[in-house]
């Protein structure tokens, strides 16, 4: 019964997501949805690290930036198209996260938190100062929209909002599928045991380092994919991509949505793409209000929206209907 409900709700969500841009063909609205989707790819990976493994990172933007710069440079300097830049972004974020993870995953608690932040800051400094490659603070403008073609067979340009929407939709379905399989696998159970009690889990042979590395690399590759998409969608990459404010937004989305759940990142990304737009009414007071909302949310809804819905659902089920 439960399984059936889940299948039905997942299917109806997917169909809704396919139909939404056809029902509301407003460019700006679709742009917001794409933004939410972009953040989802980042937050979903972060959720694996923070929500399931329990290791807080502040350097997720590092891999977003690596993916974006890889795609932008390949496209601008070599004219590579989307399938190639995507593969390259995945490979490079894979290699760098593996190397970085091998070095720093031994660190625990706050040490890991700060070193991950340092890593993103270091990349930002390099991106600002290595002007011959990255064009410094001016950034790299003019990245082409994704193009799929086989010589002589077909050629498709994805340059409308709707085509970007469906591209990111496919990526999101793919990522969510991987995550839900992963979480319910042996790896998923291992990382949850590490989150609950690292010493106990290690004592029965669950290696914190090994599983930490697996999850760190997967999350970073997702961020690299998001970066590649970002570069092609926004068509402009600059060192701002490493900025701490993106990292804050991701964390806020994750925690308010509900960490350690599949649905949480969806809720968080949608709420926090809509909320800043809604706060536009407040004009100059937007950011101060946003800060206060953040404090209030963290105090009163630390379980996130998913936790809140879970509680309501449990209460509904307990209630005996006459």
């Amino acid at each position, binding site marked *: 019964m439960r399984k059936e409900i889940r299948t039905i709700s997942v299917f109806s969500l997917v169909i809704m997501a396919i139909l939404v841009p056809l029902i509301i063909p407003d460019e700006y609205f679709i742009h917001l949805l794409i933004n939410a989707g972009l953040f989802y790819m980042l937050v979903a990976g972060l959720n694996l690290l923070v929500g399931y493994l329990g290791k807080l990172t502040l350097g997720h933007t590092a891999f977003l930036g690596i993916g974006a710069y890889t795609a932008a440079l390949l496209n601008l300097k070599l004219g590579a198209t989307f399938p190639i830049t995507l593969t390259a972004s995945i490979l490079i974020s894979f290699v760098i996260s593996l190397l970085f993870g091998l070095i720093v995953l031994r660190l625990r608690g706050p040490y890991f938190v700060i070193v991950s932040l340092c890593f993103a800051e270091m990349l930002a400094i390099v991106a600002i100062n290595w002007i011959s490659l990255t064009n410094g603070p001016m950034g790299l403008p003019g990245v082409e929209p994704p193009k799929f073609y086989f010589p002589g067979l077909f050629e498709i340009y994805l340059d409308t909002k709707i085509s970007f929407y469906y591209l990111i939709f496919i990526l999101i379905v793919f990522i969510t599928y991987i995550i839900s399989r992963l979480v319910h696998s042996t790896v998923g159970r291992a990382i949850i045991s590490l989150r609950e009690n690292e010493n106990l889990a290690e004592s029965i042979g669950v290696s914190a380092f090994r599983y930490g590395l697996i999850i760190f690399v997967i999350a970073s590759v997702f961020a690299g994919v998001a970066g590649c998409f970002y570069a092609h969608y926004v068509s402009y990459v600059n060192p701002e991509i490493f900025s701490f404010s993106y990292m804050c937004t991701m964390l806020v989305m994750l925690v308010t949505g509900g960490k350690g759940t599949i649905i949480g990142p969806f809720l968080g990304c949608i709420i926090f793409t809509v909320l800043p737009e809604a706060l536009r009414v407040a004009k100059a007071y937007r950011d*101060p209000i946003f*800060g206060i*909302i953040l404090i209030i949310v963290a105090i009163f809804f630390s379980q996130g929206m998913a936790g809140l819905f879970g509680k309501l659902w449990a209460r509904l089920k307990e209630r005996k209907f006459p």
Partner: protein
Amino acid sequence: MASEIIQQIINGLIIGATYSLMAVGLTMIFGMMDIINFAHGEIYMLGAVFAYYFTSLLGLNYFESLAFSIILVMAFGFIFDQLVLRKLRNEPTLITILVTIGLSIFLQSTVMLFWGPSPQGIPSPFPQKTIQFGPIFLTPLKIFMAVITVVVIIGLHLMIQKTMLGKTMRAVFQEKEAAAIVGININRVYAINFALGSGLAGLAGVLLGTLFVVYPNMGLIAVVKAFLIVIMGGMGNFLGAIFGGLILGVVESMAAGFISSSYKDLFGLLLVMLILIIRPYGLFGKKY
């Protein structure tokens, strides 16, 4: 050449001393309250902004505005702890991180509302001309910064070691529950601790705001540096924070003087990562 190196080291030590002030504040808050305080940089900025307004708008002299802005910043820290952090005493680190991020966004954007577009300097009361000590040149402002930093750190040390308040703080630092059992009001000690940590950040803000310039985003780089220092020395370790600050100051100043000023921040970051690879718990930290 030799004198140039000494000059760079001295400059680095003086800047590093103000970094130490900030890092000691951060490490106090972390060590006792387990809070990774991301608003520390904005509190540092707040100190500088208050001092600027006191001198330029109210026309107070430099030392009065220094004192008043630190008092204000400490009061702010005390009230914030009692209003917000008090409700989160048993929450995991992630939640308090979010709250402090929220505070930092709030403070930064609020100051941005009435701060003009350009950075401002706090007018220095000291003459600009340099004083020569053998091969080294120093401005009176830098000497004042060095002196006040040393005085504050020694004063803090004496307070923690010799007074009743310091004793209760050390007790809470070591074992919260036991301290509460013997009748220490740990809630009050937390608030005082947060206020003191904030005051140190505010002092660093006023000093560096006089040497450089004041602007609403100045906190971000500062807080990253303070974090670097704190983990380099070992979280919650006072001595580590002081030495870490001096080391970072010297490394940055040497890198800026002899290698490249645009990459100077990179060297600090690399140094910290190297130290952590060799000693994963910081220079003075204990394994936990």
